[in-house]
C-alpha cells in the first residue's frame, strides 16, 4: 500500500523534470546521487541488521575447529548438522519448547480474557468502584514491574508456586498480572468505539450482560485482540527476567531462553552448538513475524501512539 504510493510520487518527480534545461540536469544529477546515497545507507543498515543472524546460522553449521578459523565468513563448505542434534538433546530442547509454548499460550489466553472482560465491564457499566479500578490500573502503569520482582517471588512462594512444576503457574500469573493495566487501557479505547445502542438493543432482545460481551462486543474488538495476542506472544516467548527468577533452578521446566542461557553457562566454549541453539530459539519468532509483519508493526505503533 505504501510502496505504490511512493512509486507514484517518483513517477511524478520524473515527469516534472522531463523538460531539460542545464540548470535542471545538474539538479537532477544531484538528486540521482542523493537517491543513490539513500539506498546505500539503507542497504548498509539492512546488512548490519541481518549479518549477525546469517553469521549465527553459518556458525551453527561449523565443527569445533572451523569456528575458530572462520573470521566472520559466512561460507560453510561442509555443514555439520550434528550440532542441532547435540543441542536438541543436551539442552533438552523439546521439553523447553513444550514449556515455552505452554507458558506463551496460557499468557495469551488469560491476558485476552481477563483484560477484555474488565474493559467491557468498565466501558459498559457505571458501578460503584469503577473509578477506583480505573485509577488503580493507571497507577500500576507507573510502577515498574522490576521493582516487584522480589515481593511477588515471596507471594508465589507462600502459594507454593516455587521450586517445582507449579513455578510455571507463578511465571504465568506474574506475567498476566503485569500485562493488565496497559492492555485494559488499550482495549478500553476499542470498546468505546462501539455504539452503546448495540449493547442495549442486544439486551432488550434477551441477550445477557455476559452474552453481549461474548457474542457482540468481543468479536467487534478483534483488531485489539490481534494486537495484544502478538505483543504477548513476542514478550512472553522472548522473556528472560521472570522465567529466570522462577525456572532457572528447574531443568525440567525451563523455557527455551532460560534453557539456552543455562546451557551456555555450562558449556562455555562450544560456540557452534550454542549458535545452533540460538537459531532454534530465534526461528519461530522470526517466522511468525515475517508472516504477520503488518499486524506486528500496526500493533506496536498503535501501542505507542494510543496506549
Amino acid at each position, binding site marked *: 500500500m505504501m*510502496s505504490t504510493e*511512493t512509486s507514484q510520487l*517518483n513517477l511524478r518527480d520524473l515527469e516534472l523534470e522531463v523538460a531539460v534545461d542545464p540548470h535542471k540536469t545538474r539538479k537532477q544529477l544531484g538528486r540521482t546521487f542523493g537517491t543513490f546515497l*539513500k539506498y546505500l545507507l*539503507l542497504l548498509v543498515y539492512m546488512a548490519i541488521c541481518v549479518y*549477525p*543472524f546469517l*553469521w549465527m546460522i553459518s*556458525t551453527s553449521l561449523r565443527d569445533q575447529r572451523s*569456528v*575458530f*578459523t*572462520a573470521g*566472520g565468513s559466512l561460507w560453510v563448505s561442509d555443514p555439520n548438522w550434528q550440532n542441532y542434534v547435540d543441542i536438541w538433546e543436551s539442552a533438552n530442547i523439546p521439553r523447553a519448547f513444550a514449556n515455552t509454548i505452554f507458558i506463551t499460550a496460557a499468557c495469551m489466553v488469560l491476558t485476552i480474557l*481477563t483484560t477484555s*472482560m*474488565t474493559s*467491557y465491564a468498565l466501558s459498559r457499566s*457505571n*458501578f460503584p468502584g469503577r*473509578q477506583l*479500578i480505573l485509577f488503580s490500573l*493507571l497507577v500500576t*502503569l507507573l510502577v*515498574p514491574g*522490576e*521493582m*516487584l*520482582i522480589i*515481593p*511477588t517471588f515471596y*507471594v508465589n512462594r507462600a502459594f507454593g508456586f516455587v521450586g517445582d512444576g507449579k513455578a510455571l503457574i507463578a511465571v504465568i*500469573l506474574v506475567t498476566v*498480572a503485569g500485562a493488565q*493495566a496497559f492492555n485494559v487501557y488499550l482495549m478500553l479505547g476499542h470498546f468505546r468505539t462501539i455504539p452503546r445502542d448495540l449493547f442495549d438493543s442486544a439486551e*432488550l432482545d434477551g441477550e445477557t*450482560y455476559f452474552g453481549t*460481551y461474548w457474542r457482540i462486543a468481543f468479536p467487534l474488538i478483534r483488531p485489539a485482540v490481534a494486537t495484544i495476542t502478538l505483543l504477548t506472544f513476542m514478550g512472553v*516467548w*522472548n522473556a*528472560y527476567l521472570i522465567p529466570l527468577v522462577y525456572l*532457572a*533452578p528447574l531443568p525440567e521446566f525451563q523455557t*527455551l*531462553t532460560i534453557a*539456552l542461557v*543455562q546451557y*551456555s*553457562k555450562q558449556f562455555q566454549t562450544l560456540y557452534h552448538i*550454542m*549458535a545452533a541453539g*540460538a537459531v532454534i530459539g*530465534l526461528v519461530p*519468532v522470526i517466522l511468525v*513475524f515475517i508472516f504477520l*509483519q503488518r499486524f506486528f*508493526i500496526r500493533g*506496536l505503533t498503535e*501501542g*505507542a501512539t494510543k496506549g
Partner: protein
Amino acid sequence: MASSTPITTVPRSNVPDTVAGRRGKSIWQRHGMAYLMCMPTVILFLVFMAFPVGYVLYTSLLKWNGIQSVLDAQFIGLDNYARLVQDSLWWQAVRNTLLYAIIKIVVELPLALMLAVVLNSGIRGVVGFRTIGFIPVITSIAVVSLAFTFFFSPLPGAPFNTFLIELGIIDRPIAFLGERATAFWTVTGIAIWHDLGINMVFFLAALQTVPRDLYDAAQVDGASVRQRFLHIEVPVIRPLTAVIVTLSLAGSLKVFDYFAVLTGGGPGFSTTTMVLYMFRYTSFGGGGLAGATSQPEVGYGSAVAIGLGLIILAVVLFQQWINSLQDKRAG
C-alpha cells in the same frame, strides 16, 4: 509502555444505566455481572501489584535473608536506606543505567529518525526495508546476546575483532565484553542494534501521517529538503517523539537482559545496572552476576528495589514535565 498516558485521563463516567427494569434493584442485582467480570483483574492487581508494593516496603525495613520466615527477621528501621545512600556500588549502578538510557536516546533516536526520513522520501521497497530493519527487535535479547558473546570475543575466528584488524583499526584482538574500557559501550551498542528498528518504525508511522498535499505544496514553493524537514516533518513527529522518548527511557532504566547475559555486570561493576544490582542480593536465577553474594540479603535487596522504582518514577515524571513545558511553549 503507556506510562506516557497523562494522569488526568481517567475516563469520565459517561455511562448511563438506562436499560429498563434496572432501577430500584440492589447494586449487586444491577452490577453483579460487571463485578464478576472485573474480578480476575482486580484479584491479580491486589495479589501481584498492591500487596507486593506494601510488602517490599515492609521487607526493606528488615534484616532478612529470604530463607528464614519473614516474621523472624529483625526489624532495623531505615538502616537499609542509610546503607543504600552510602553504597558507592549502588550509585555506580545508577550512573551506568542513566548513562545507558541517555546514550540510547542521544544516539539511537536520531539514527532511527534519519532512517525513517530516508524511508519516507519516495524510496522503493519500503515494506521490505522496514521488515528487515525490524527483525532484530522481535528476537529474544537473551538469546541474541548469547550469540554475541562469541561475536565480540577476542578468540581467533570471532568476527568483530577480525574485521577491525583487517580494516587496520586495531592491531591485536580486544576482549570487547571483558575489559572495563569497552564492555559497557559494547553492550550499549548491541542494545542500539537490537532496538533501533522499533523507533525507526515509530517515526516512520508518524511521518506517514503527513498529508501528501503538504509535500506537493512544498515542491511547488521550491522548498529545500532541509526546509521541508524542519517545517513539515518536525511539527508532525514532535508529539510522537515525546512518546518515543518516554518509552525509550522507561525501557532503558529497567534494562537487565543485555547486561545479565553479555557481561553479568562485570568486569568489576562497570556494567552493573540497577536491576542487576537488586538481583545481586537475592538468590534468584542461580547467580552468575558480578559480585553475587553467597548469602542473599533480601531486606537490602528490597531497599534497592524501592530505590530503583523511585528513580524510574522520578525520571519519567521529570521527562513528562519537560514535555508539558514544551507543549505549552509550542502552544
